[in-house]
Structure formats: structure tokens, C-alpha cells
């Protein structure tokens, strides 16, 4: 509260560039492996082949928007089965709740594409320009041949990574080998090029220039996670009761009146978010764990125990201050809250799995046409019309036979198919106009309504489905 009262506050501020220092340690190693694994999944997935027969695409993972089909290995999802996707999204949401309430922002720190790609971009930056100090020097330097060369190389490399990212994305939506050739010969759909261009630019700018600003300004998750984290959550923190009062080493020795923190700024220098973890829990922290590695390295060097910065639960502070051991990790992780999230998550998962395995590869929907409610024919027969949709969710063309049961009065006929047999192409659906008729003198002819069950069975097999509907008689 000194000068700020007199001078008006600035309306906007320049971003402070961040130059994270290289660090090595357990978390860094784990993050490299995760980064490699996730990038590999992203790039390799669309190239995996999966044989589904001659009439179907042979790509293991394919979002076929043009034909409205989603393929994932042995699973094929039709548009009317979109609840599987909705279920998976709900599971993803509850999974995020579970992980955040148990382990804080593990998604942000280890798995989020923004984190993974930024990590990759920083790695490229370090290969080209050197570590933190070299990069800082280059940043402050006037524009000369070296700076132009290094920045030019870096931006080109970033741009190529961006193109590879956007390029791989479109392979999920079409046959990858065909599209790959088409993309380079100028034959691909303009939408493919526009998508590649947009994702190239977003990757380039988000990974190269926006970095931590995406997490701070653009992403809603840091706000949502504030409601998900509680004092039992394991998260990354600074044990200030151990570190304070901080102070520099004096003649290479630790002052006995000082805490363990020697204020070496290692934790700040490695932070990709540019924050000081010693300031406490803060919104900008993505819990990537790099400050833990940096601090542990320093603690090893000055002969102090590791863990000045580490995973901790805020509820353990009192015990730790008194020098008692904290509660075990399992006690923090297994709480009513996390158990509840896990149960809901598993229930939805089991439900989806059951639905997936009991679903049939033929499907019929019956909608009665009620304009008019019924039709009287010349001989007094009463006829109802039904719109029937048959779905053949199978890799070969099949012949469906339609019939009616549960009502002896009724006869079924299919417009355009006198033998009631309709062939539906592989992985296609067809719409039929179907008639049910009650001859004069039968109860269904005169009743207001009577029940009917329409069957669709596969010719020459036991597979069949039915749909219950209503027949309107004359009194309707």
C-alpha cells in the first residue's frame, strides 16, 4: 500500500515470459514417459487396421461423420446409440472429479494436451536455444543474425509439430492411408485442409506463445477444481513449517536458526507456470511436480531430507508441524467422497458394458401413421399404416421377414414387397410402409384399439426383434 494509492492502476500488463530450467528427477522421468505414450497413442491410433469384412471400413478407430458411424475396434456405434458416447462423457467427467478430489490437478499436470504439447515445445526450445540462462540472454538480446536464426528455427520446428498435430487429427475422421495420400496430392476435401490449418495454428500459438495463459485465462477447469479439492486431497505444497524462516546459505553452511529453505529459487526457475509454490495453494499451479524434483535435488545436495516441497494434504499440517507422521496416503485417497465417485463411475461403466454386450445387430422402430387414424377399404377391411425403420447393423446384406403376432385378426403387408421380405444392405437402414389389416367381422375391425406385436426376423436364422404397437379399429 505504498505508491499504488497515488498512481492509477495499469489497465493491462505485458505477459512476463517464462523460461523454465531443465530439471531431472522422478516426476520429470514419469512425465517424459507419459508424454511419449500419449503422443504415440495420438499419432499411431488412426493407422491401426481392423478387419470388419468387405463392406465396412477397416480402420480401428474411425469417426465416420459422413455415414454417421463411429468405429472403435470391435465396437460400432450408430447415431441412435449415441448414449454410449454420452455415458463415456459422463464417466470422463466423474473420473475427473474422482482424480481431482483424491490427487488434485493430476489431469492438468500430467495428461492435459495443453501441458503435454507445451512440454514438447519447451523441449524443442531448449534443444535449439539452450537452457534457461541461454534463453533469457537470447530473449534480452537485440535482433541479430544469431537470434533470427535460432528463433526462426524454433518457430519452424513448432510450426511443423503443429502441422503434424493438426494432420493427425483429421485421420480419425477418414481412412488414414487414403487421406494421407490425398492431403499431399491436393485431392483431400477442403474441410480437411481447413481443419489441419486451424489445429496447426492453435497448436503453434497455444504451445509456443500462450502456454500458461491458456490455463489461467481460458480454461474453466482450474475454477471447477477449486470445488473438487478439499483439505484431504493430496496436492503439491511447500512445507513452510519446515522451510521457514528461509535464508541463503552463509559460507556454504546452513544457519541453525533458519529453516530448510535456502531460497535458491530452483522451484521457481523450473516452474512452467512461472509461480512460486512457496506462496501457497494458488490457481495457477497445475501440479506438474517439477518443483518437487528441483527441490529434492537441492535438499540432497545440502544434506537435508527430501520433501520440503512434495505431495501433501492440507489436513496433515497440524500433525506435521508437531513432528508427527502424516496420515497414510490410502487414508487420504479412500474417503466417502472418493468411494462415492468411484461407485457412480463404476455403475455407469458396468451399465454401459452390459448394454454394449446385450445389444442386437438388428433393430426396428415402428411409428404408427395416425393421419388418418385408420382406413376403411372397399370390402370393409380396416387398415392401419406404420412407418417401420429396419437397421441392419452387420457387415453383410441380410433379408428381413416381417410378421405380426399377439392378434389373430390382423394380417401384415409391406408396400412394394408382396412376400413381406425386405433385403437391407450391409450396415444400412431402410424405411418401409407396412399395413396391418383386420377383415370385416373380426373384433379388431370394430374395436377402438387392439394390441399388435410386429416382428422382424432374419431369414434363415433365429435372430429377431419385435416392437409392440396399437391397431385402431372403426370406433377410433
Amino acid at each position, binding site marked *: 500500500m505504498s505508491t499504488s494509492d497515488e498512481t492509477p492502476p495499469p489497465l493491462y*500488463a505485458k505477459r512476463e515470459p517464462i523460461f523454465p530450467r531443465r530439471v531431472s528427477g522422478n516426476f520429470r522421468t514419469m512425465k517424459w514417459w507419459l508424454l511419449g505414450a500419449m503422443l504415440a497413442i495420438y499419432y499411431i491410433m488412426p493407422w491401426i487396421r481392423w478387419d470388419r469384412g468387405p463392406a465396412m471400413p477397416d480402420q480401428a478407430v474411425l469417426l465416420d461423420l459422413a455415414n454417421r458411424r463411429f468405429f472403435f475396434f470391435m465396437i460400432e456405434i450408430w447415431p441412435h446409440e449415441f448414449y454410449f458416447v454420452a455415458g463415456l462423457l459422463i464417466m470422463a467427467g466423474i473420473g475427473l472429479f474422482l482424480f481431482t478430489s483424491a490427487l488434485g490437478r493430476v489431469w492438468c499436470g500430467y495428461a492435459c494436451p495443453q501441458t503435454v504439447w507445451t512440454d514438447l515445445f519447451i523441449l524443442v526450445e531448449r534443444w535449439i536455444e539452450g537452457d534457461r540462462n541461454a534463453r533469457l540472454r537470447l530473449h534480452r538480446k537485440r535482433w541479430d543474425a544469431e537470434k533470427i536464426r535460432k528463433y526462426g528455427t524454433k518457430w519452424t520446428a513448432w510450426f511443423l509439430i503443429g502441422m503434424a498435430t493438426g494432420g493427425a487429427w483429421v485421420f480419425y475422421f477418414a481412412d488414414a492411408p487414403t487421406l494421407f495420400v490425398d492431403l499431399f496430392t491436393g485431392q483431400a476435401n477442403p474441410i480437411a485442409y481447413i481443419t489441419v490449418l486451424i489445429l496447426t495454428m492453435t497448436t503453434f500459438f497455444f504451445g509456443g506463445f500462450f502456454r500458461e495463459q491458456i490455463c489461467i*485465462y481460458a480454461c474453466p477447469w482450474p475454477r471447477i477444481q477449486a470445488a473438487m479439492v478439499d483439505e484431504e486431497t493430496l496436492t503439491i505444497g511447500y512445507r513452510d513449517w519446515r522451510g*521457514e524462516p528461509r535464508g541463503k546459505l552463509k559460507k556454504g553452511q546452513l544457519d541453525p536458526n533458519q529453516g530448510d529453505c535456502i531460497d535458491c529459487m530452483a522451484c521457481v526457475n523450473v516452474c512452467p507456470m512461472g509461480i512460486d509454490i512457496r506462496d501457497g495453494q494458488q490457481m495457477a499451479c497445475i501440479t506438474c511436480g517439477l518443483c518437487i524434483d528441483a527441490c529434492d535435488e537441492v535438499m540432497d545436495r545440502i544434506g537435508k531430507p527430501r520433501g520440503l516441497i512434495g505431495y501433501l494434504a492440507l489436513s496433515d499440517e497440524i500433525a506435521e508441524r508437531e513432528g508427527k507422521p502424516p496420515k497414510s496416503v490410502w487414508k487420504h485417497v479412500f474417503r466417502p467422497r472418493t468411494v462415492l465417485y468411484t461407485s457412480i463411475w463404476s455403475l455407469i461403466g458396468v451399465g454401459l458394458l452390459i448394454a454394449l454386450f446385450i445389444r442386437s445387430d438388428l433393430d426396428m422402430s415402428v411409428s404408427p401413421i395416425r393421419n388418418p387414424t385408420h*382406413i*376403411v377399404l372397399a370390402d370393409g377391411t380396416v387398415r392401419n399404416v406404420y412407418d417401420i425403420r429396419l437397421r441392419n447393423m452387420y457387415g453383410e446384406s441380410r433379408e428381413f421377414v416381417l410378421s405380426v403376432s399377439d392378434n389373430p385378426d390382423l394380417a401384415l403387408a409391406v408396400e412394394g414387397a408382396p412376400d413381406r421380405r425386405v433385403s437391407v444392405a450391409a450396415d444400412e437402414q431402410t424405411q418401409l410402409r407396412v399395413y396391418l389389416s383386420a377383415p370385416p367381422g373380426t373384433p379388431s375391425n370394430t374395436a377402438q384399439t387392439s394390441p399388435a406385436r410386429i416382428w422382424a426376423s432374419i431369414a434363415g436364422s433365429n435372430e429377431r426383434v419385435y416392437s409392440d404397437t396399437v391397431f385402431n379399429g372403426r370406433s377410433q
Partner: protein
Amino acid sequence: MAEESDNTQDPSNKITPASRQYPDSTRKIEEDIRTTGHSWDGIEEYDNPMPRWWVWTFLITVVWAVGYWVVYPAWPGINSATSGIAGYSSRERVAQEIADFEARNESLFVQLVDTDLDEIREIDDLHRFAVNAGASVFRAQCSQCHGTGGAGVQAAGYPNLLNDDWLWGGTMEDIVQTVTYGIRNEDFPDARWSEMPAFGQDGLLEEDEIHEVVNYVLSLSGSEHDEALAAAGAELYEINCASCHGDGGEGDYFIGAPALNNQIWLYGGTPETLFETIYYSRFGVMPGFATRLREAEIRAVAAYVHQLGGGQ
């Protein structure tokens, strides 16, 4: 940096009640971070400056908006709006899209005209196209009288197209003829023309005789009737009606004479409506569509009507 080292030298202000857990962070908030001074239930609002790129983005959107005014229609005037140098018009775009759509379907329309009427339903793709195109023609041109579902309106004599009884024939050829030239339509010499005398009004039959004929007609379809009156009406029917409606009431669709021996009534099957029909006579009128629809559209709507349930 200088500030930070200053703070670390003064440990006295670290432990305050409000900053018990994270003394360092609380101290920073108290000393470095500006708030707006607003406080709701003890929650204060930061007064952080905006990121500079955010301001730039805002300015770019302003410039973009100005460019938009120049390129696209934007400012409203009294009668119209500024048209913009790109000459964009959403009306023209719709017209263009409709033209594109029709150009894409042109080959199917040509095929529809070239194909023999009875073969259309044998060619799956063509038939599906014809039925869908015909459905849209039907909704626009036919549903006003025949109803969106094709059930007609009995009280007004608009025929039901869903049953298996046809006034003028139910083959593709008959339907195309009816749609093309209409019924009792003076605009087209080829239009078919039905004629029934107004037996009561013109004094051809007495009212009592009409009642007898009504009962005989009801007996033809097995409807409820008076046996004595019907027996008396048999001869009157043979003299006055059978030449068009047939000896057994089977009708004649070449002259549009309805069949009387079935369950389907154009104007209703009660004695009162039958009496009215015979006394005054009544006819349906239908416009001819030869001048309103292309031949392909007429064939499409015929294919649609043919598959509604009664096609012959």
C-alpha cells in the same frame, strides 16, 4: 526481487491469524496485490491488469467489425441496408442453393420422364427419389384438398387416396392423367368429365321414388336399409342409374361413376347424404397441373400417391 528479500528479512509479520497456514502468500496479498476495495461477505476482488494480448484482441475485433461493414450488408437504411462490396445477399444464396440442389437431381428427373410409368417402381433408387420428391409436391399442391395424410375430406367430397377404391382409376397411368388435366376442368379439353343428373331438382324422380332408390343403393353394399323401399327402388335404379353405376353398382371409372357396392362413400353413406346427392347431384372438381408442374413432378407425385396403399 528486491522487495522479496526485504520481506524475508522481517519475519515478524509472517505469523498473523489470517495467514496461519501459508504466511508467505497472505503477506503477498496484503502488501503487493491491489484489490478493487469491494468486499462481499469478506470475499475481496482483485484488481489485476488485463493481459496485453487481450486488449490487442479486442482492438482487432473492432477493426474487423469495420471491415465487416464495408464487405457485408450492415447498416440499415429506411428502405434497405448498405449492400457491402462483396455483394452478398442471403436471398440470392438461398436461390443459388435451391438451383444447385435441382441441378444435382436433374439426371433423376430426366430418368423419371424417360422411364415407362409402370417400370418406375422396379428401379429402387428412382422409385425412392420419385416418392420423396412426390411427397413434397403433394404437400405443396395436393394437401389443401386431399389432406396432408391423403385421407381426403368426405363431407366435401375430396376423395381419400389411401384406400383401394378409385373414382378415376388407380394405375400409374390413370393417376398421371388425373393430375395432369384435372377433373371437370374447362381449361383442358383432355380433362375427364363426369355427369350425373339432378334427379330431384330437375323433376326426373319424385321424392318418394328417390327414397326408394336410396334404400336400394344402400342394399347394394349390404348397409342398413328398408327392404320394402329397396325392392321398390330396384327397377328405378335399373332405369335411371345402372347405365353409369352398373347393374350391381360396380361403378365405372372410365366415366368417374363411383362404385356403390362397397364400403367407401365419396360424400357419405347415410340415407340423408344419399338423398341429397341424388336430388341435387354433386361433382368433384380438380385443377389440372399440366401448367403448374413439370412432367417429372407429375410423375413423382403419381408415384407417391400410387404407393399410399391403393395403387393398382
